[in-house]
């Protein structure tokens, strides 16, 4: 990591706020994501995690704030241009193209790919079971298989920032484990991973750093070993629900 680009973090989010109509969904959130890092965004349902990821992907407009990627602002880029410049989102609920085969899903993912190490064959190496079933329609697949295809579809675009939204939702623990197994491999190639999890322990197990959102605001940030269960509890539910935390300014 000695090239000039390292002077900028891979992704920098500064004071970003997002509104859903009148509702303030994300309230002045800031963080950096560096190469090879796994940043877990945790928080309760409705804390604004998915909205944050979708805003970075370009599916929502930020009301205010700045998002830069390798030092340049991406706020004016439409969603599809952000993909080609290296930001991929695996959306919540997998969102595969249901009328298509596995391979067609991957080919669509690859159709505007940046140059890089991932292509369809590399995805088959990562998930060997896919090779035999590449001609099958994805709607016949199990939830775990669909999730793997969704990750593969994002990876073939050769992103430098990979965002994963609730990949464990609705999956059996053993399946989740197998999906998270590949994250170290992905990160080792220099990709920064930003993942959203409702399941805190799951998120912290793979993360190098964590960020906790509550009602759209950042309430906690640190590496997993810096974070105590108590501090997470306060950050997750809010101080008013935790009896001994009275110092929280508001």
């Amino acid at each position: 990591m000695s090239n000039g680009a390292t002077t900028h973090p891979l992704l920098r989010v500064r004071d970003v706020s997002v509104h859903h109509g009148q509702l303030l969904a994300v309230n002045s959130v800031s963080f950096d994501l560096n190469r090879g890092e796994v940043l877990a965004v945790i928080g309760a349902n409705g804390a604004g995690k998915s909205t944050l990821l979708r805003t970075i992907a370009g599916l929502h407009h930020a009301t205010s704030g700045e998002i830069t990627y390798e030092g340049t602002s991406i706020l004016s880029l439409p969603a599809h241009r952000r993909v080609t410049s290296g930001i991929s989102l695996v959306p919540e609920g997998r969102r595969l193209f249901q009328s298509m085969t596995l391979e067609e899903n991957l080919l669509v993912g690859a159709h505007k790919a940046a140059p890089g190490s991932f292509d369809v064959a590399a995805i088959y190496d990562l998930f060997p079971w896919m090779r035999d079933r590449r001609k099958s329609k994805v709607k016949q697949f199990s939830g775990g298989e669909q999730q793997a295809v969704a990750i593969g579809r994002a990876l073939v675009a050769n992103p430098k920032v990979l965002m994963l939204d609730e990949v464990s939702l609705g999956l059996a623990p053993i399946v989740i484990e197998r999906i998270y197994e590949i994250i170290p491999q992905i990160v080792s190639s220099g990709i920064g991973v930003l993942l959203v999890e409702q399941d805190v322990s799951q998120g912290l197990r793979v993360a190098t750093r964590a960020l906790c959102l509550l009602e759209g605001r950042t309430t906690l940030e640190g590496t997993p070993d810096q974070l105590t269960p108590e501090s997470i509890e306060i950050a997750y539910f809010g101080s008013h629900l935790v009896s001994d935390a009275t110092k929280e300014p508001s």
Partner: protein
Amino acid sequence: MTWFNILIEGILVGGFYALFACGLSLMFGVMKVINLAHGDMAVVAAYVAVFLAPKWHVPEVWSFLIVVPLFGLLGYVVQRTLLQKSIDRDPFTTLLVTFGLSVVIENLLLAIYSANGQSVNIGSLVSKSFQLSSSTYVSYVALTVLGAAVLVLGALQLFLSRTNTGRVIRAVSDDREAAQLCGANYKHLFGIAAAISFATVALAGISYGVMTQFAPSSGGANLLFAFEAVVIGGIGSLWGTLVGGIALGIAQQYGAHVNPAYQILFGNLLFLLVLAVRPQGLFGRKEAMA
């Protein structure tokens, strides 16, 4: 022998309906938009072939060579401007806007070219036919149109399944947002779908002008037939549209056989029957219904 007649006539006219309908079906599948001006675009194409193409020194027989690409371009432009604007609002607006366009186009044609019937003149070729059985004659023009329909549907099928752009268009139709997350510029792809739609309907319009007389008001009836063919066959299935067109053609020919006044009515009744009994159509997927 009458049944054989009805069948042959139904298949021939059904091919024409499919040619007319495939663009409507494509736009509905991809943009979830029913272009109520679809039939009028065909009529405009026929007028261009009759009145403008000769001015550009293109004989009417070959007019489709320039009118079809011209309409492809027009489709892209109309989609990227007016239609995209209305899609950005809501489906309700799109219906109102395309219906408004339909009425405006029809009355513009009326104001410019009057209500007189016109036809695309291709010389003596139009009346040539061969005998299939003692009472069944098949006109070469109708057969050519059926052939063109099969060719267009086949090419469209290949385009959608084998090419990168075709695949991404299908992806946008499945899930617009997920396709954006794969780098698809959906507005551009909408434009391409509209270009294909306009180009095919231009070909259909010129074919129509060769086979029969047309007037500014021909668009509405043709839109209905195209829509009926799409719904009977099932949204989202190109070959279903061909089968739907043929089923509609046979129903109409049977109606005409019962009573000449019942030709269109029987087609309508088949359409309403399909809507009542199997709203997803013969080959359609249930989830494709809006």
